[in-house]
């Protein structure tokens, strides 16, 4: 038996979460096979071998020239059909979850998304790899955990990002080529066009985020937050109360249904700290809450807080930075 890891890549650039999936796969003690889709990923063999892949399966087909959930799903499902691995592990990302959902649908197998850990409790030593796995997975975008039991001959799971730390396990991988049989209809959901984003700091990667919530009060009142963010080389984020009011675009929303941020410091201004906002902000290295309410959840969970009206505190911080810079 083997474990199959689906390699997430975009036209040959591997997604780092793939190495987490490989690390998790290695922990199961069975040979790890990694499947790459499309010839653009043929150059990934060494990187995959360095993270423990014993065999790299290179799937080649014209319809795999770019990402397409149906073509990827059928390719992986066909390979699973040929080789019956005991598990298929993919990245807990948009693409990883999407591809495994297709595999589950095609093979009528259960699929457990966004796992933190699994206990295979003897499933490999006893007669059947069909024995259930006990899995811990995330719900509510990470605010709640679930333990579940997964029963299937081939277990389909994705690893939630950062659940395991990717580590290397240097080795040499053999390669194997796989030609899926895909029909023209598989091409209907392949990417036809792309619009590249202008380079620059994004909410997800910014070193500083100045977040504004309902307490900001209006779209215009975000100007001092913009000013402070630009002084700090950061960007402005917001809560869902703000986007729901139409004050700012959803691209600025931090949280479960927005963007997950991980800045060096997050300044959360006029944000109460609802759990769905918190899960998007909790990877920040430090959090400073500015809030009139000393009892606000954001204040309780933050590393630092200023109790006061953000409309006074935020401009005062900007003024103090300017004063020191000019001193």
């Amino acid at each position: 038996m083997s474990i199959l890891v689906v390699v997430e890549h975009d036209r040959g650039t591997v997604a780092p979460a793939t190495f987490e999936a490989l690390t998790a796969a290695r922990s199961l003690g069975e040979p790890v096979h990694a499947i790459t889709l499309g010839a653009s990923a043929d150059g990934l063999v060494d990187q995959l071998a360095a993270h423990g892949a014993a065999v790299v399966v290179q799937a080649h087909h014209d319809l795999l020239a770019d990402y397409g959930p149906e073509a990827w799903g059928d390719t992986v499902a066909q390979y699973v059909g040929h080789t019956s691995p005991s598990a298929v592990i993919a990245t807990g990302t948009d693409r990883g979850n999407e591809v495994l959902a297709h595999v589950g649908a095609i093979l009528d197998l259960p699929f457990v998304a966004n796992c933190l850990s699994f206990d295979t409790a003897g499933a490999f030593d006893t007669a059947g790899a069909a024995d259930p796995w006990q899995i811990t997975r995330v719900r509510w975008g990470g605010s709640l955990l679930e333990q579940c039991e997964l029963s299937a001959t081939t277990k389909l799971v994705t690893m939630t990002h950062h659940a395991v730390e990717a580590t290397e396990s240097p080795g040499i991988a053999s390669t194997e080529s796989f030609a899926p049989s895909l029909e023209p209809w598989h091409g209907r959901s392949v990417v036809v066009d792309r619009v590249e984003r202008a380079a620059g700091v994004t909410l997800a990667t910014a070193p500083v985020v100045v977040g504004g919530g309902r307490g900001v009060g209006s779209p215009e009142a975000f100007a001092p937050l913009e000013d402070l963010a630009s002084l700090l080389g950061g960007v402005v984020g917001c809560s869902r109360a703000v986007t729901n009011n139409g004050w700012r675009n959803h691209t600025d929303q931090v949280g479960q249904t927005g963007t997950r941020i991980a800045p060096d410091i997050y300044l959360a201004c006029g944000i109460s700290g609802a759990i769905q906002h918190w899960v998007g902000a909790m990877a920040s290295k430090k959090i400073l809450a500015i809030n009139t309410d000393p009892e606000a959840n954001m204040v309780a969970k933050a590393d630092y807080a200023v109790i006061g009206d953000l409309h006074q505190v935020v401009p005062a911080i900007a003024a103090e930075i300017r004063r020191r810079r000019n001193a």
Partner: protein
Amino acid sequence: MRVLVCVKRVPAPGAKINITADGLAIDTAYLAFTTSPHEECAVEEAVRLVEQHGGEATVLTLGPAEADEQLRYAASLGVAKAVLLPIVGADWDPQRTAAAIATAIAELESADGPFDIILFGNESADSGGFQVGVRVARSLGRPIVNGIKGIEVVGDGTVRARRESEVGLEVYALPTPVVLGVKEGINLPRYPTLKGRLGSKKIEVGQIVPDVAAGGQRMVTLLPAAEQVGATTILGHGPDAAAAVVDLLEELGVL
């Protein structure tokens, strides 16, 4: 154009999620319920599609009898028809949910003709299984792409759909009938009008009682997520705290 939107009723917790004593559910005694956010946007998108292209939107949910509230909310925004797939007790697993919805869709379509576009939320806010829409699309033999943040019907039965990626936007050109998994941010959902609210009280909610077997994923228990708890350092009160804040920013090296 016939549009179907599938939604899920979920609790709306605030600062904390509390679990019931048996560990099997969220304690909702003091909570309101809402439509899962991605699906709230899917409902708005369904209404806009019908406003732009004519036709009719239908909303469907599999859930407890109380999910009538979410169906009527969708109706108050402009969805014409509503269908409840009633279940009793705990949530169904994703395979079972998808099988029930696919069967119900087949029944609705055999009566009134195919849906040109079926919308799902990308994932439900609570269980986050990331698969019900895909399973339904596969069993109907229709294309599906998830994570959709823009839909444009370009005529001749093609829908252009956009999704965000690490580097920008990906565009898909899909033939109808099509299924799409929608993400929050695709639009800004409207609020119901008074007229819409009153009208929604009167619509008849259809029922299709689902009867399908459980799948291979079984929930055992819910657990609280590990919390980072530590004391909060209060840097001061009001604008006078600015100097202490800037000291901190200097210390953290972000200035």
